[in-house]
């Protein structure tokens, strides 16, 4: 029996796993997809929010500001990419200045440091491509951008290095009570645990409602934060994005938000840590929790809205569009705590924006609650290694350093992804780290191979060859994103049993 099973290997689940690994306990993360970071964690704005948005006193406000601070600290020990470029909320009408001031006050109440309202002149100095209608902005120097894949993978790798186990392709269908704890039905497996953490993203309502079926009468007076056993409903709220080529990556220098007006909410325009420009998201509630498709209407909305705050966004430099689903909940606050009347069952639900930023703080909070419930003690001094070896980024490596890498491992001299400058060595490294990257998308998230302007046109066959060799699989077993997404379906002519009639010599077609 594990001490803890965490359902969901998104950024929240991985952060909780990593923080629980500080304690003397056994932890297993179960994930329905083939890899970490496959849901909301992979398809979002990749912003480190400063923390002025959430209502003062809310869990969101507290965890955002705390998560922001921890993000920059953790980036050092876990070696993921984060850039504190600062964010601007641009006000495009004098009539809305009161709204900007309210946002400023809210930020101050939330404890966001160094917030300031700047006038158009100063705004133009910071952001020359801001729209002609911009009158002022809220400047938050603690805002930033992060590699959401790098963050989640780093948390998972550090958790794994400290003893946490991962099970992939294991969708949880039920949780039952057993002696001394719970049984989690995950795919074909039944996994026993003393405590279960629900970090199931857009599916967290289903698991919450399953937990609720196991709840008895609430105990009074416990010191662990609780969540109600009332039914929870998560609404997938779709956000669609444009991702532009690195040639457009300098179009803005900061994350540029639009101050919501009576005309509606704008979209953000921001550089990414990979050097691209991201534009989006829309916000539309959808029925399906799998509806990560982009739509003509959604993409058109991104196009029309981005010009409200930033002029001449070079949208023709688009290299891909994508959509993510926020785990939205009516009350618009995180649902984190032990379920009333069900000691040992924990919710980490409704983690929508600023969930990515909050993830480190969520990890600390939830692991603390679980540790208290299970009376876990910290591992002895030195038994937990908080550091995780970084991955090589040849885009940020000098030629001298790169030459040295080639001397140590010639595979660094074999470029596989020409657009993002990814070598064979980095791909091999990604495949053999724990948890392993075994699919094209898993390798993309770890190395950025296929993420560039050719979108895998040249490197896909080469990466397939490396996967075949390193994992000893055949080409038709290689997937884009797990079972069902095989990249090839067979070999040439394998379905031809007799010569096609149309190929008879001399026949008129």
């Amino acid at each position, binding site marked *: 029996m594990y001490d803890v099973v965490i359902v969901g290997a998104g950024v929240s689940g991985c952060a909780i796993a990593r923080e629980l690994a500080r304690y003397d306990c056994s932890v297993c993360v179960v994930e329905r997809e083939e890899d970490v970071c496959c849901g909301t964690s992979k398809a979002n704005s990749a912003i480190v929010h400063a923390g002025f948005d959430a209502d003062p006193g809310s869990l969101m406000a507290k965890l955002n500001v705390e998560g922001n601070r921890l993000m920059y600290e953790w980036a050092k020990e876990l070696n993921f990419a984060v850039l504190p470029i600062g964010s601007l909320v641009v006000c495009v009408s004098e009539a809305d200045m009161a709204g900007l001031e309210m946002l400023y006050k809210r930020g101050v109440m939330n404890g966001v440091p160094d917030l300031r309202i700047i006038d158009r002149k100063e705004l133009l100095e910071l952001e020359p491509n801001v729209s002609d209608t911009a009158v002022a902005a809220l400047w938050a120097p603690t805002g930033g951008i992060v590699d959401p894949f790098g963050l989640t993978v780093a948390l998972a790798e550090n958790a794994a290095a400290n003893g946490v186990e991962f099970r992939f392709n294991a969708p949880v269908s039920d949780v039952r009570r057993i002696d001394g704890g719970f049984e989690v039905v995950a795919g074909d497996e039944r996994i026993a645990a003393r405590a279960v953490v629900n970090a199931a993203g857009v599916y967290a309502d289903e698991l919450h409602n399953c937990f609720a079926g196991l709840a008895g009468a609430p105990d009074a007076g416990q010191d662990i934060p609780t969540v109600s056993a009332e039914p929870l409903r998560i609404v997938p709220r779709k956000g669609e994005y444009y991702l532009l080529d690195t040639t457009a990556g300098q179009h803005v220098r900061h994350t540029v938000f639009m101050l919501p007006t009576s005309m509606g909410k704008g979209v953000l325009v921001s550089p990414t840590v990979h050097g691209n420009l991201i534009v989006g998201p829309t916000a539309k509630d959808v029925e399906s929790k799998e509806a*990560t498709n982009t739509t003509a209407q959604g993409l058109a909305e991104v196009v029309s809205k981005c010009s409200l705050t930033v002029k001449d966004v070079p949208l023709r430099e688009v290299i891909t569009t*994508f959509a993510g689903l926020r785990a939205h909940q009516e009350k618009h606050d995180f649902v984190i705590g032990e379920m009333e009347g069900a000691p040992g069952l924990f919710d980490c639900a409704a983690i929508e924006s600023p969930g990515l930023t909050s993830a480190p703080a969520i990890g600390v909070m939830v692991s603390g609650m679980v540790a208290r419930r299970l009376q876990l003690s910290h591992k002895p001094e030195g038994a937990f290694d908080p550091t995780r070896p970084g991955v090589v980024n040849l885009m940020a490596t000098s030629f001298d350093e790169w030459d040295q890498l080639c001397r140590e491992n010639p*595979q660094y*001299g074999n470029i596989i992804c020409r657009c993002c400058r990814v070598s064979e060595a980095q791909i091999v490294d990604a495949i053999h780290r724990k948890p392993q990257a075994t699919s094209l998308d898993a390798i993309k998230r770890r190395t950025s191979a296929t993420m560039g302007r050719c979108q895998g046109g040249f490197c896909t066959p080469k990466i*397939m060859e490396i996967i075949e060799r390193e994992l000893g699989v055949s080409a038709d077993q290689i997937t884009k994103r*797990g079972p069902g997404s095989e990249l090839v379906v067979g070999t040439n002519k394998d379905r031809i049993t007799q010569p096609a009639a149309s190929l008879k010599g001399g026949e008129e077609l």
Partner: protein
Amino acid sequence: MSKVMEHHGVVIVGGGPAGLAAAIAAYEAGQHDVLVLERDVQLGGILNQCIHNGFGLHTFKEELTGPEYAARFIQKAQELDIACRLGTMVLDISPERVVTTVSAADGIRTIAADAVVLAMGCRERPRGALATPGYRPAGVYSAGTAQRLVNIEGQMPGREVVILGSGDIGLIMARRMTLEGAHVVCVAEVMPYSGGLKRNIVQCLDDFGIPLLLSHTVVDVEGKDRVEAVSIAEVDERMRPIPGTEVRYPCDTLMLSVGLLPENELSRAAGVELSPVTRGPIVDQSLQTSIPGVFACGNVLHVHDLVDFVSQEAAEAGAQAAHFSMAKDAQDGAAERGVPVVATDGVRYTVPSFVDPQKMADKLTVRFRVANEYCDRYVSVYYDDERVQHRKKRVMAPGEMEQVVLKREDLLAREGLAQITVKLEEE
């Protein structure tokens, strides 16, 4: 990194058809210190996966396959003992023509070149660049990627195929997939005409009964893991999908052949001036770019229709690079750009963009593409306001490259010539 910098007369970036022809021509022009840098593990570039025939009709007066066509040039380069460094990717070219490379064998190396020939070729426009709505499953391939999987790896990317875009690779792949046992449902083309060669429409679609849907595009991709279906709609004259015309085609593969883009990352980083129309370098009569001693040819300069023309153009670039590398005094001169060649009235661009009558050869081929499908139009050349060429063409289409030839003596005879214009005229 070695302390003493390696040095060569002509360094050629790319060992595909353009690079090979340039290398051979440079050698034959007298520069025997030629180095070809190729990132793949073999020479020949994209020709290696073009196993269909139809190559070399102009150059060799026979129909060769891509690998056969490449082999002729590879063999020639070997006979001349031209140095070719494989598995070597160029990372940087400085305006002073210092080339930085990386390879597994040598790590990082820097090479000083008297002249550089850019021959990096082009890449395919991916699905993402179209912002086509829908899911992003496995089974969406650019046609060239699928071609590599099928022709080099022997792997079938899918069984039921819809092709978006009627570029030549897409047309060729329609036939290839059919021959390998897949079913090609249709080819949808957003334009009212195909972007490919007429002969490929006939031989790759018509001969196999594959429908070509002009003025149609893909408006939705279904399937979260693997493609399950695509929806295709008719578009209006502004290429916007017409609501209500959507037809859903169940399939497991969407293949794209929606345009080729010259791969000029290195050129741009070096400071080479690029044309917004071709997305390739702006060159003069010697195929020299805005950086003296840096020449360009093949698909990195502008996307060609036939490899024969790539070879011809590259031979010119290689010879010019050789001359430059051997005439040391020429290197310091600021590049004088000559008379501008202006493309207008249905002519999208010309290569070259400038002609210096003093420095040009006796005859200069100016290549261009037209902007639309035209019937019975005249290709006209003007020297300033005087029309000097007027040639009727039955049919012209954007998929096929056109050319005019300028004579040096004609240009020299016109002192003070300010502009050469190439355009289409109705009469």
